[in-house]
């Protein structure tokens, strides 16, 4: 029996690229590498205009607090350091623009770990992961070294999240099929770093072929176990994942590590393996390029910092009817306004959608109180009431109905027959309340 959680939705999976092998993206002429691709402080550029950089060379880092270094994904000359809007639309981020010299010269710093896995200490692994600039590649982009550190002494089990519950995306699926050893190797390294003996690889049951490959590769290794999950969105959310696997609810405001699990994305584990065995930091990733308005849907391995423009050109170009570009999956991905935006560490997919998918076209009608949103909310909230309270600016009732517990998965909005943008109303109110709390905390701190 595949495991699952309460609520959620069955979205047409649209995994059109499930049989498209990962294609290496040809070296781009230029890349523009953002200094912020992770949660935490942005990295500071370490190179100046005109400098020569090698593949894997550190070009940005910030050493105090939570942050993640950034590396050159190609070799060449730094042409410019530009401030550009960040992909979320909030604020600006420095981008280091590198012109490719096509020499593919690798930095001398890129060296495999000299010790065997049995001999390294957790601290050494954390250092390797930190220096490799690895952050969560499933979407949230939390620095991986910090996640490992937070789990030490608390976690009893590692979970490798291979659910990939968003429609369209098959990047993890292809990685499991084509490079299972990297994922499994990464899982073993993560176990070693955390001093644990058991890791679960959680796979949705629409990827049974991948689960079979992983199981076969694991062989007799009892430290790794593949578990099938029912295909349902948002199974890949860490709370729903933990509930499905362990039958426990993660209390609000707690990290999985607080209740005994650390969860890593499949490709994050693969990146850890690469960093450990070759010394190559995180400089490229697998991206699913799909949607009804892209010429040739593909899975590609792209150097970080490659522009959407170059990616689309490689994938047969965008069609005439292209109306929107989504960074990520269709349920939680962010719409982009610019073809100059670039592939980042957490870009699992780029979707080019036509007007067919215009969610605005069907105008918002009145809520008919059907309760479908209540039935699908994986956080067991009442989205219809939350949206109404949020619209009415009734903060007190919003908080009473648990507005801050919303994970913004979008199930309510997907299912709403009246097409009320429920999650957007909730998102706005959440941001307002959080900003207000921050302000109050700051003014309280000032008074003291």
């Amino acid at each position, binding site marked *: 029996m595949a495991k699952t959680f309460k609520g959620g*939705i069955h*979205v047409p999976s649209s995994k059109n690229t499930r049989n498209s092998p990962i294609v290496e993206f040809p070296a*781009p*002429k*230029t890349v*523009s590498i953002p200094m912020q691709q992770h949660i935490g402080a942005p990295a500071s550029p370490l190179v100046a205009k005109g400098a020569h950089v090698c593949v894997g060379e550190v070009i940005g880092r910030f050493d105090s607090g939570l942050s993640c270094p950034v590396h050159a994904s190609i070799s060449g000359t730094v042409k410019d350091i530009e401030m550009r809007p960040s992909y979320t639309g909030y604020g600006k981020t420095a981008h280091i*623009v590198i012109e490719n010299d096509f020499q593919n010269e690798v930095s001398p710093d890129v060296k495999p770990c000299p010790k065997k896995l049995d001999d390294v200490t957790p601290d050494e692994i954390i250092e390797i992961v930190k220096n490799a600039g690895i952050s969560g590649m499933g979407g949230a982009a939390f620095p991986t070294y910090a996640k490992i550190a937070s789990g030490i002494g608390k976690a009893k089990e590692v979970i490798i999240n291979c659910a990939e519950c968003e*429609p369209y995306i098959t990047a993890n699926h292809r990685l499991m099929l084509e490079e299972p050893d990297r994922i499994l190797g990464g899982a073993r390294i993560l176990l070693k770093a955390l001093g644990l003996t058991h890791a679960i690889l959680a796979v949705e049951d629409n990827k049974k072929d991948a689960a079979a490959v992983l199981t076969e590769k694991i062989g007799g290794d009892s430290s790794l176990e593949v578990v099938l999950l029912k295909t349902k969105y948002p199974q890949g959310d860490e*709370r729903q994942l*933990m*509930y499905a696997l362990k039958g*426990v*609810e*993660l*209390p609000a405001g707690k990290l999985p590590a607080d*209740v005994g699990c650390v969860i890593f994305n499949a490709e994050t584990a693969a990146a850890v393996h690469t960093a450990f065995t070759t010394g190559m930091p995180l400089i490229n990733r697998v991206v699913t390029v799909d949607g009804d308005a892209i010429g040739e849907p593909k899975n590609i391995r792209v150097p970080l910092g490659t*522009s959407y*423009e*170059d990616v689309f050109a490689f994938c047969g170009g*965008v069609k005439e009817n292209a*109306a*929107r570009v*989504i960074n990520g999956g*269709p*349920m*939680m991905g*962010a*719409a*982009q*306004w*610019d*073809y*100059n935006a670039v592939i980042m560490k957490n870009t699992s997919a780029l*979707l080019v*959608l036509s007007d067919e*998918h*215009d*969610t*605005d076209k*069907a105008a918002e*009608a*009145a809520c*008919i*109180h*059907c*309760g479908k949103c*209540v039935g699908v909310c*994986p956080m*067991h*909230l*009442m989205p219809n009431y939350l949206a109404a309270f949020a619209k009415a600016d009734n903060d007190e009732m919003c908080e009473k109905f648990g507005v801050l*517990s919303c994970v*913004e998965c*979008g199930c309510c*909005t*997907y299912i709403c*027959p009246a*097409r009320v*943008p429920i999650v957007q109303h909730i*998102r706005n109110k959440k941001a307002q309340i959080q900003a207000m709390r921050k302000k109050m905390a700051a003014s309280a701190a000032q008074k003291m």
Partner: protein
Amino acid sequence: MTGEPQTRKFLKMSASPHVHSPVTTTFLMLDVILALVPALIWSVYVFGWRALTLAAVSAAACVVFEFLYRRLTHKPDSIGDLSAVVTGILLAFCLPVNIPLWMPVVGAFFAIVIVKQLYGGIGKNVVNPALAARVFLFLSFSGEMTGFTAPHTHGVDAVASATPLASLQKGILPETELFDLFLGEMPGCIGEVSVTLLLLGGIYLLCRKVIAWHIPVAYIATVALITYLFPTGGIDGFTFMQYELCSGGLILGAFFMATDYVTSPVTSRGRIIYGIGCGLITVFIRYFGYPEGVSFAILIMNLFTLALDKLTKPVKFGGGKTVAKQ
């Protein structure tokens, strides 16, 4: 930076999710209408073409009133959601076949303008428009509203007939065979008689996930339990229960009226309590008041919807019984 851009058109910005379920309000209402069609056909078979005329007049009047109200008050047009059609058909379904044709028009005005639109339109009304209109007509024109004719006696030889519920209230088993009741060979409102076809429609709505099982099951089970335990007139409990379940508007009410989205709770637990409440009040009225209590029962429970939603607010994830120990 990256050579000549291949496209310079503006990209559309929108908030996630970027995909949407194809099911819309119109879609759901269309399913409800489809589910009512078999019972409507049956009513034509039993009561003649006038049943269809009644339904058409009622539905058309509802649509016209909705259209005019929205137009005159400069609000966006809303007849496209088909909810007015559903209200019209449901209103006709709880009228006797020989009622003058202007009465459903009055009812439609009451349902659409007073009960629905004055409160803000679809989603905002407190009580079910069709049921409120039926009760309005019932209290205003009791004679016409209770002038039920026997099946297949339409036309010149219309025969007034007592409904099975009227007999049951006196503690007498109706003359109609139980099987005929189940099939729909009985006097009554045009849409309520065929238990079989209403069940068929109800099951269709359940399968299509247009409605959830909680309200109809809780409602019918409550009526079944109480009538089984407390039969009147010395009738055997099981027989009495079967007659009670197959007579009157229970099945129509439980599947099509009590499940009205706008006026029923959104939580599973709330829906069960709501269904039980409907059942208790229905039986109470059938025992001690009018022969039939479905309309009043649902209207009364409509008023509890908001309170039930708040009372049965789900425990949010992260605070339930299975919350992780730290």
